[in-house]
């Protein structure tokens, strides 16, 4: 069974051993990501059921989606995941300024994704394609909309981390929040990588 070294937990406050804190934070974030996947899992299940039921409708209506915009967004998000990963590795080597730059790039990518999505939604509404149009568009708006909320949440988290980093909170020794925040951003990216083919590339 798992044994955790706790010999250092002698103090009277609530300071936990940094090693334990680090592994707890990472473990907690992984669990949280699991619940996020389950949250989307409900939508993926609905997608599978309705796609089996209305295969033709899905095929017809997916043509209304703009593959180019979707592809651009995919590239933007994958790139932002890369910059995020580079940021984590930067702070682990103690390069605080490099982390700030990389965080700014990641955040800008997130914003670019949002702006892109804004125009995409706008075009849909102009063509009177709304969540009430059909089951396909209901799924499209629900899945991308929920994902969009996660992008916003991710941007907020990264912004907070950026501010903290500018205040000099993180270093080679202490960077758990950056690593954990990075995990969250990768999840946001990962979900999109599933959404893109499911919605835009139905064959």
């Amino acid at each position, binding site marked *: 069974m*798992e044994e955790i070294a*706790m010999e250092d937990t002698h103090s*009277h406050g*609530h300071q936990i051993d940094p090693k334990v804190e680090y592994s707890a934070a990472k473990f*907690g974030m992984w*669990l949280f990501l*699991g619940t996020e996947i389950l949250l989307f899992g*409900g939508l993926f299940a609905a997608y599978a059921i309705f796609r089996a039921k209305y295969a033709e409708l899905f095929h017809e209506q997916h043509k209304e989606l703009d593959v180019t915009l979707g592809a651009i967004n995919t590239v933007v998000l994958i790139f932002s995941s890369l910059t995020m990963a580079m940021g984590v590795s930067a702070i682990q080597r103690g390069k605080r300024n490099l982390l700030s730059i990389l965080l700014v790039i990641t955040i800008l990518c997130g914003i670019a994704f949002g702006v892109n999505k804004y125009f995409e939604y706008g075009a849909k509404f102009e063509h009177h394609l709304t969540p009430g149009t*059909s089951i396909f568009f209901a799924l499209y708006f629900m899945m991308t909309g929920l994902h969009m909320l996660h992008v916003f949440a991710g941007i907020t988290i990264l912004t907070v981390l950026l501010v903290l980093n500018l205040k000099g909170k993180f270093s080679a020794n202490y960077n758990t929040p950056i690593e954990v925040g990075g995990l969250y951003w990768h999840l946001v990216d990962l979900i999109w990588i599933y959404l893109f083919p499911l919605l835009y590339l139905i064959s």
Partner: protein
Amino acid sequence: MANHTIAETLYVPYLDEKGILSWLLSTDHKRIGIMYLISISTSFLIAGISSLLMRLELIAPGKTIVDAHQYNVLFTFHGTVMVFFFIVPGLAASLGNFLIPLMIGARDVAFPKLNLGSYWLYLLGATILLISLLKPADTGWTFYTPYSIKTGTDVILLTTGIFILGMSSILTGLNFIVTIHKLRAPGMTWHRLNLFVWASYATAILQLLATPVVGITLLLLIMERVFGIGFFDPAKGGDPILFQNFFWFYSHPAVYIMILPAFGVISEIIPVFSRKPIFGYKAMAYSLLAIALISFLVWAHHMFVSGMSEVAATIFSFLTMLVAIPTAIKVFNWTATLYKGSIQLHSAMLYALSLIFLFTIGGLTGVFLGSLAVDVHLHDTYFVVAHMHYVMIGGTVMGFFGALHFWYPKMFGKMFNEKVAKVAWALIFIGFNVTFFPQFILGTLGMPRRYADYPPEFHSLHELSTIGSLILGIGVFIMTVNLLRGLTNGEKAPENPYNSVSLEWQVPSPPPHENFEKIPVVTDYPYVYGKKNTQEG
């Protein structure tokens, strides 16, 4: 760890700091536990009053005090508040918060701030529920589509409130899992954990795996009402049964979220008042996990007559029967723990024994409902209502009351009046059975549930049930007053009034803010009672 000496520290009980903000901003797991305790108890009492109103309406056929719509609102309120505001967060959040760190030898949970955040989310959810009462929903706590799409009442606010509670529940579960994995004291191996901690662990797994699914389901329901997305609306090509599948995929495991902590509670109470080790510790621990896992495979037994295929119904009936097995093991093991013990019928013990008795009825009647041919007749009748209350009150609430009486001295550092507690227990036990046993017979006779009115042939059983509910209500009232009086008038509690060997009793009552002066080193599991050399089989 011996090389570190601590300067003389003053013992400051965690309750000492006064002022509302010192509570609302506290990240102390014990204070958060007590805040949950206050919130869920309030929810329990309010929802209990609504059930008394329902029973009053049903005392005679025809309109008695409320009309059909008001009755529907009442049972919706009763169900949603009891399920989502009392029993799902209930024991896990209040007792779990208070006890888990004490039992595993930690100073707090892994993420104390997140823990406080979860409580705020609970409060936010409760506030939204209160606002929704301006135009209270009448869908029942299950929100079945398409009725929940079509009704003119405020379903959106209510489900939003529940969605937020779900987030609170997920974060609490996450916190507990990480705490149990990472913060156990030296020597506290998995097989030395209290069964309450095992139960909380199994519960937390369920909270993490099931709650997101109900979250997305309620979100889809809200979108359905706002944008008309049509997932669950047959008129738009959607599937109303999909809602039921999603809903029960969460809500059946949720039943175990509600009951498992109570199993944990009485696994603590019985050894202490029998002065015997728990019988079959490992079987008890693993059966908790088994119940948790099987609970994900049985959701569709709520839908045998919902137009699902016969094949699916058969599979789910089979899987449902499987849940009975680990549950039976638990009941037998608790009973066997009493064998050759030194049994003290403390009020907490009376509640624990009542749980075994009543839950056995609840569990066995569950076998009726799992059997396909029988379920067709009994589904959606009062039999289900009675079964559900035997499990939820007979199981969870008895466990909750038992826990309140058991850990009261530790939580508040005071003693309550034991004689009054026993009188209240007797009234609750009798009142409960008089209320709900007749409902089994109403059910087998064919009385459907959620009826504001009923044909005259069901009158006498309904009347009996209403009388029982009044006795039950009086019992709960006396118990509440007794426990509240203990806070101001009770004697000071000793550190370990029952001579328990479990870790939480080895700290002062009430515990200091930091729990342990020194993190303890654990050498055995917490049920070492009796003379070891007399081991027999």
